[in-house]
């Protein structure tokens, strides 16, 4: 229930929120596209941190936390790609631009973390699986800074960052109306909550796997 509350609130905020007058109502996709990709970054960053912890401590809880954040991150990456593609159709006039660095790199980010999830199935020995996956969790994070700076390094169709840009951080003034900015920040908060409760579910299911692996006898009794 804790999951559906923020989820419903987020969708309501996105639906009833203000929009950019030039771009029309489809610019409300901002409240879907931007928070989901930020939270996906957050998820993958946490996957990185917990993968490092697992690699050095071999404590099962760190593995579960890493998996949970990666799974949630993958879901939000898919949402951000779908929302961004639809937004692109409405403003740029196309669903996808193959020459754009940021678009391609985001698709690759998704593939890498789908690979992370797939790697969970490759070994019946959970301890080995966790160790193998932690490599992907550690190295996969390199993509995030590249993605963030892609719109600055390469001339692209994708617009520049509005919030996480040098100008905005330096001046403290985002190129947005106050109501749009407020709605966006509320969306970010709500999506973060969705991520927390969603990843908790994934964590619990992975904890059960670890429990079965470490205590096979207790499972046999049930």
């Amino acid at each position, binding site marked *: 229930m804790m999951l559906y509350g923020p989820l419903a609130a987020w969708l309501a905020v996105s639906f*009833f*929120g*203000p*929009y*950019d*007058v*030039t*771009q*029309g*109502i489809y*610019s409300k996709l*901002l409240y879907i596209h931007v928070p989901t990709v930020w939270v996906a970054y957050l998820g993958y960053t946490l996957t990185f941190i917990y993968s490092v912890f697992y690699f050095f401590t071999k404590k099962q809880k760190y593995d579960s936390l890493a998996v949970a954040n990666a799974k949630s991150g993958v879901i939000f990456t898919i949402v951000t790609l779908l929302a961004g593609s639809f937004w692109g159709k*409405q*403003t*740029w*006039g*196309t669903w996808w*631009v193959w*020459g*754009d*660095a940021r678009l*391609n*790199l985001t698709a*690759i980010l998704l*593939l*890498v973390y789908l*690979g992370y999830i*797939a*790697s969970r199935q*490759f*070994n*019946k*020995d959970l301890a*080995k699986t966790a160790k*193998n996956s932690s*490599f*992907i969790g550690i*190295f*996969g994070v*390199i*993509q995030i800074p590249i993605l963030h700076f*892609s719109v600055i390094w*390469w*001339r*692209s*169709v994708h*617009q*520049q*960052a*509005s919030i996480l*840009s040098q100008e905005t951080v330096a001046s403290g003034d985002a*190129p*947005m*109306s*106050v*109501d*749009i900015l407020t709605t966006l920040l509320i969306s970010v908060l709500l999506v973060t909550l969705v991520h927390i409760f969603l990843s908790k579910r994934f964590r619990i299911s992975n904890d059960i796997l670890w429990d079965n692996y470490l205590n096979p006898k207790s499972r046999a009794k049930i």
Partner: protein
Amino acid sequence: MKKNFIIVLLGIGLIIYASTIIASRNTIYYYTTSETENIEITTNERIKLGGFVVEDSVSQEDGFTVFTITDGNKDIEIVFDGFIPELFQENMGVILDGVLDNDIFFADDMLVKHDNEYVSSDGETYDVKSYSK
């Protein structure tokens, strides 16, 4: 089972390698109007050209949409025949795909490049009446 893991690692390596290649090849996704003076393009070579639509320059001639784009320094006249995105308007950034011939650019593909500014209708609250434009 170790084999599978190596395959995945190789796959990821390949993906990262491919992405670097793709990204570096597209360092310049489009040229600005000023840059057309310095690049060497063969006749009929397709290039992408980006710029802002000049005010009061848009007109219809013989079924073509004719307008001028600029990057602030150099104007180029565009003869366009293709799908025009709804957002196309004066002062908007556009990226065109076509052929440059004697300072006239014949294009048949257009992308509208929106900037990172978001301005709401009244800067205050959501208005149900303005929902349908």
